[in-house]
């Protein structure tokens, strides 16, 4: 195996956390500011909405450190996806900024952000339906000039079913298979930040576990992961940081464990 | 019904009204009314297309064919029958047609009933039927077309008042639409489009070629009118006296009177159709149609019979177009199959619908008036534009001569520019769907 993740996979996660400057205040009080201003990727005090419609996000901050996993949870329609899109530049922000590694990228187009090493798997229509599975993956690596066969092998490794179906148009796949293609496509970019909007929606438990495993591994290579999850308990379990969004605002923020432990969060957002 | 309109929409209608009033003042009321009458007909056509596209998302590019069928209705209803032609071969032609139809029906039945050797049986029925049909039909046609070909050479019509042809034209179009819909409505978007385009071409080809029906490319001219002739008015002392008393020139007044007669008739038709269309659109029926347009699979799963609804709206829309077609032929006073061109009768109507605002009946109507006005007026506008551009150039300069020479072509260019501008500033149409 020539995986770039190799050899790091089972190291203690605490190694990765060294050097993070996150000074999260434990606790879950609404509106409590956490010190994330100099995080690796941060959508800082974002306010904005679709087109000329009403604001969906209100002064919402999402951040992730290098090599960390940040998970966003919240009720349906809270603005999680909107927040992700905002971070990726698919939305015009009225206020706030997006910074990557200290650099202000608020004005960059999505494809410029891809060039900067960001990758995104949207929640819906996240595959090229008329193209084969393999072409989907190739498109993920569109900006790469080097040999992509290694990465592709890893993706097939991660999602074996895709290998069988690699010549099939992705539009003919089952719901869960599509989801795997979508995540695979993002992995093909070899990103420094991976943003996933509900990657496990519709995937079977075994694949979901595989996926979370791989996400942890990926994070350990120093890649930042920002993801939205409704399978929140599993997701928060592996999260370094968790955000609860409600109506476009930061409602609770904390480490994954803290949020899991908070009875109110559990009851209101995680299904008890 | 008017209550559905917003202030902005009313302003747009007022603007279009202003265009017509302006035309009346600057050019002449006769011109203004001429354009208005065709505008009314265009509005009805646009309404029909909007039903199909705006309500149900059916991309019908065969409008021309339905317009022509409506026109055929006008001839069949209003022209006097040609006695000689009926005597010589009329019945034979009809018999031929019946045999032809019977062949098709037999073939279709065979296709669904016969189990063994289905293909060969159907082919055999079709081939044999075709030859019998040709044998009977061709002779009849030859006999009919031989009757004074320069002025008749066709079976003629029923000699009824031409106004009756409006519903009949609608029915003809509806019948054709039903046949087409039964076969082609399974097709999606552009595929349906080209299929309907082709069918329209076939309809025109038949109209052009089958002289026994409506004289083909030799045209039927001099259709009777639902309104008096200008000449009769001019010869009527009462009319002349009254107009002179009111201070009008009797000749001009006769023209205006006749045109107002048409306007009145057309307005009634448009108002009725618009009311029907609006009531339907604002009801659960309209909601169901929109649902089907948005997502057929889901609508089907929610118990809506998509195929039937498509057929229904396709037939209705086509019927409306057919009515407009018959009205247009009535207004023209002649049926000239050669003039049916997709650009004019299909794409221009589409432009009306899209510019007006697809999915919105009022939009379609507005588009009908506005675009037709433009279509007629871009000619002088284009010429004026060229005059303006060349005004500064010295006489005799090659460019000036060239530009003025090309003025006629500025017509389409101007049309294109205006279309692009309207679309640019109102991409969803002037009165968008809400």
């Amino acid at each position, binding site marked *: 195996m020539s995986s770039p993740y190799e050899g790091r996979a089972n190291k203690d996660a605490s190694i990765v956390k060294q050097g993070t400057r996150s000074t999260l205040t434990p606790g879950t009080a609404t509106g409590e500011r956490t010190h994330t201003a100099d995080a690796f990727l941060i959508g800082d005090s974002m306010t904005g909405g679709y087109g000329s419609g009403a604001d969906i996000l209100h002064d919402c901050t999402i951040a992730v450190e290098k090599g960390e996993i940040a998970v966003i949870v919240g009720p349906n329609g809270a603005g999680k996806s909107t927040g992700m899109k905002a971070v990726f530049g698919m939305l015009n922000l009225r206020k706030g900024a997006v910074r990557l590694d200290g650099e202000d990228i608020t004005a960059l187009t999505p494809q410029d952000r891809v060039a900067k090493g960001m990758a995104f798997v949207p929640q819906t229509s996240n595959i090229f339906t008329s193209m084969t599975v393999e072409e989907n993956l190739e498109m993920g690596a569109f900006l790469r000039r080097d040999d992509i066969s290694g990465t592709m092998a890893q993706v097939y490794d991660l999602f074996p079913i895709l290998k069988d179906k690699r010549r099939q148009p992705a539009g003919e796949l089952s719901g869960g298979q599509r989801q795997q293609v979508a995540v695979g496509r993002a992995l093909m970019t070899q990103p420094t930040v991976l943003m996933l909007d509900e990657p496990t929606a519709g995937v079977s438990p075994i694949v979901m576990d595989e996926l979370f495993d791989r996400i942890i591994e990926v994070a350990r290579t120093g890649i930042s992961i920002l993801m939205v999850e409704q399978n929140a308990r599993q997701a928060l379990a592996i999260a370094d940081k968790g955000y609860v969004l409600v109506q476009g605002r930061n409602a609770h923020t904390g480490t994954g464990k803290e949020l899991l432990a908070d009875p109110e969060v559990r009851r209101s957002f995680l299904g008890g | 019904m008017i209550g559905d309109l917003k202030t902005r929409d009313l302003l747009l209608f007022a603007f279009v009204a202003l265009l017509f009033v302006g035309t009346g003042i600057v050019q002449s*009321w006769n011109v203004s009314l001429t354009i208005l009458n065709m505008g009314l007909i265009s509005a009805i056509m646009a309404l029909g297309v909007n039903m199909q596209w705006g309500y149900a998302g059916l991309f019908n590019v065969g409008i021309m064919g339905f317009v022509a069928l409506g026109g055929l209705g006008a001839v069949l209803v209003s022209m006097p029958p040609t006695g000689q032609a009926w005597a010589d071969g009329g019945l034979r032609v009809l018999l031929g047609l019946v045999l032809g139809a019977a062949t098709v029906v037999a073939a279709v039945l065979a296709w669904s009933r016969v189990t063994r050797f289905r293909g060969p049986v159907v082919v055999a029925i079709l081939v044999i039927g075709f030859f019998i049909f040709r044998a009977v039909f061709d002779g009849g046609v030859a006999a009919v077309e031989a009757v004074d070909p320069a002025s008749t050479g066709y079976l003629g019509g029923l000699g009824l008042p031409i106004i009756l042809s409006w519903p009949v034209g609608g029915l003809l179009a509806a019948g054709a639409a039903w046949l087409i819909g039964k076969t082609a409505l399974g097709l999606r978007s552009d595929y349906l489009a080209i299929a309907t385009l082709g069918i329209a071409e076939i309809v025109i080809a038949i109209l052009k070629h089958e002289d026994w029906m409506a004289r083909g490319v030799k045209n039927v001219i001099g259709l009777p009118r639902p309104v008096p002739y200008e000449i009769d008015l001019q010869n009527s002392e009462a009319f002349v006296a009254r107009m002179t008393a009111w201070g009008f020139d009797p000749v001009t007044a006769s023209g205006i009177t006749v045109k107002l007669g048409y306007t009145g008739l057309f307005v009634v038709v448009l108002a009725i159709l618009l009311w029907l269309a609006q009531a339907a659109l604002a009801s659960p029926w309209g909601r169901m149609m929109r649902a089907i347009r948005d997502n057929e699979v889901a609508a089907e799963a929610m118990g809506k019979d998509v195929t039937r609804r498509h057929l229904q709206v396709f037939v209705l829309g086509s019927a409306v177009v057919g009515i407009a077609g018959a009205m247009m032929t009535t207004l023209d006073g002649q049926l*000239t199959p050669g003039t049916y061109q997709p650009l004019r009768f299909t794409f221009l109507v589409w432009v009306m619908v899209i510019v007006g605002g697809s999915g919105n009946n009022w939009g379609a109507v507005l588009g009908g008036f506005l675009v037709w006005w433009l279509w007629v007026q871009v000619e002088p506008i284009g010429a004026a534009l060229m005059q303006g551009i060349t005004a500064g150039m010295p006489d005799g300069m090659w460019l000036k001569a060239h530009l003025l020479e090309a003025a006629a072509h500025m017509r389409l260019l101007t049309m294109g520019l205006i279309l692009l501008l309207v679309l640019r500033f109102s991409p969803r149409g002037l009165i968008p769907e809400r």
Partner: protein
Amino acid sequence: DGHSPVKMGIILGFTGPLESLAPTMAAGAELAISEVNAAGTLLDGVQIEPVRGDSTCIDAAAATAAAERLVTSEGVAAIMGADCSGVTGSILQNVALPNGIVMISPSATSPGLSTAEDNGLFFRTAPSDARQGVIVTEILQENGVNEIAMTYTNNDYGKGLADAIQANFEAAGGTVTINAAHEDGKADYSAEIGALSAAGGEVLVVAGYVDQGGSGIVRSALDSGAFDTFYFPDGMVSQALEDNFGSEIDGSYGANPGTDSPGAQLFQEMATAEGFDGTQPFSAESYDAAALIMLAMEAAGSTDSADFKDHVMHVANAPGEQILPGELAKAIQIIKDGGDIDYVGASAVELIGPGESAGNYRQITFTDGTLEVVGYR
């Protein structure tokens, strides 16, 4: 001089399938107008101002609207046009007739127009195609042809002409192997040529337009060796044939309205001086149509259609002094002096029956790649 100019509508298909014929036709008419204007003597100093309108050739509604605008808004006193028979009929019925405006078409040749209701307002300087059918048969038979294949442009002109030819030719004992339509402006005529060649015949009669499908048909027929001798009716005879095919069509022949009167020649010289091609179809007829309108005005002493409509036939026909192109000023003078004229013009106008040209035809043939006039009938 106190006279405001009187307008004359020139309604031709400036856009549409005959757009390439329209410019020279309009130029012909405007040539007559400028000739009269230059003289300045019409009705003691009336200037005529041409106003163009687009008939589109095919769109009856647009043509009607354009004519309506010219008549009721521009206030034209007469219409020179329209070109195609279809739109001509509709303008006549919907605009000219109701408004009592004289209309002289230079080119609408459909036999159907002969019997159209016109209140004495409609004339044409082109002959009805019924007449041409006779001419064609005569010429073909003189050339010993007994079997022809025929193709016509699919409109009232083509169909009417083809029917007339077929009826006459068959009545005279000939055989028409096939009489097939072709649509103008189509991309490809292989199918038509295939059918025509399979049917066979000594000569192919192409009742079409030279700058439309007609040339396309001839081209394909030559290239595929289907036919090498053609008969060209009026819509085809033109300089363009020479340019397009040169000596490839040697031995072919045809006829178009025209006379051996020096008028035609004169007109061509005038046209050349003016910078357009006077041999283009119906250019001469357009000149004549415009001239007739103005001469009739002079004869009536009025620019009101109701007055001068009755004078058109009179100035066009004998008795009187013969008037050729370029002699319009002279004609006006003669009328002013109470004399009588017989307008001959560029196309040897002789109006018969319902006010249409009697039909003088110029017989031509192609030798060594050039169009040669061999006689008149």
